[in-house]
């Protein structure tokens, strides 16, 4: 009988099917499985815990309220990450973060062009709040990730924190495969430079 199933041992597709049958326990199981990865992705995108909580909540509400639109030929987690990433990116765009100018022109197509259009932040310009967030996020790599362009940040986090393949990232972010590879390459390059600077 479906109600007696052990949800924790079911694959995502089966849990989604049960959620579509109106089982609240299945909805909660999907949240339990992905709350940490989604929250981590969004937190690293927006660097504000309270805001990340709100955006994570929004992402899950969007996903669970429109489960009927989920296409089972794709991984549920890819669909969830796509929506979560869009929620975070939309917020960053709306807020017109300083990172737009900090991280270089979005039209830059080569690493040099990105560098040329990037405005470096001096340490003294970081607010107390940013310092506190940086402390919470911890290491130098976290701070370096925070300074990446949002597009690079999504790609590098999905690749190395969530362990997604290039193809999955391309599908999740609706980007051509070549663009994903370029973004990840540039992100690694920028992170390497940032870490070299830290080690010096």
């Amino acid at each position: 009988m479906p109600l007696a199933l052990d949800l924790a041992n079911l694959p995502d597709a089966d849990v989604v099917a049960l959620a579509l049958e109106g089982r609240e326990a299945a909805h909660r199981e999907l949240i339990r499985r992905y709350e940490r990865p989604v929250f981590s992705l969004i937190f690293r995108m927006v660097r504000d815990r309270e805001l990340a909580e709100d955006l994570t909540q929004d992402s899950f509400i969007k996903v669970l309220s429109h489960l009927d639109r989920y296409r089972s030929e794709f991984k549920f987690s890819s669909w969830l990450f796509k929506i979560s990433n869009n929620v975070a990116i939309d917020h960053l765009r709306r807020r017109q973060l300083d990172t737009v100018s900090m991280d270089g022109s979005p039209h830059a197509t080569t690493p040099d062009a990105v560098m040329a259009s990037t405005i470096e932040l001096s340490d003294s310009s970081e607010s107390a709040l940013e310092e506190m967030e940086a402390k919470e996020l911890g290491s130098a790599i976290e701070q370096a990730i925070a300074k990446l362009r949002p597009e690079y940040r999504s790609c590098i986090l999905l690749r190395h924190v969530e362990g997604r393949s290039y193809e999955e990232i391309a599908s999740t972010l609706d980007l051509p495969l070549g663009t994903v590879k370029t973004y990840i390459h540039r992100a690694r390059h920028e992170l390497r430079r940032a870490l070299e600077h830290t080690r010096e």
Partner: protein
Amino acid sequence: MNHRHLLPNEIDLLVDGEAGFGVAPLRAHVAECDDCRARLDDARIVVDALEALPHFAPDSRLADRVMAQVPVFVPAHVAARDSVFRWLPQSAPARLAAGIMGTSIAGALTVLLVWLASRGETVMFATGLLSDRFQGMVADTARTLALSLLGESAVATLQATGALGVTLLVLGFLGAALGTVFGLRRLATASARRA
């Protein structure tokens, strides 16, 4: 030794642990070239640091907050199926017994229906007989009721006027009932206003 140093995308291939026909020469080059090996090590440091990053935990009430805003509908077919499941016994032997009993009853009913269908004329005759009796019983009850309520002369008049008389009587009754209801409501409203 191949003196061409590795390109950045070739370093990426090695960092990603790609295995393919073209990767073996790259590995061979790295084994011999200190410069490329140093670049590869640097790239691996970044990737290792990224892969060691932890997941953060959101507030423990996240699920409750989300579920408070997500409408959960049980589709009609699922509700119907659940109702059936609720009536079914839990244990396998009891389910088997219920299945056998259900199949037996369904089989007996089917045999009965087939038997009735094969005796169409008998069934029609019995149905007509029952229908006539039922109609007669309803007419007698109605007549007795009308006689006790309206009296013999009124019933005789109704019989003389036929269907038209009955219709007028019914309409008159409905009109009187509606008039009474509206009158009572108006009275109640007026007294409520006064209060």
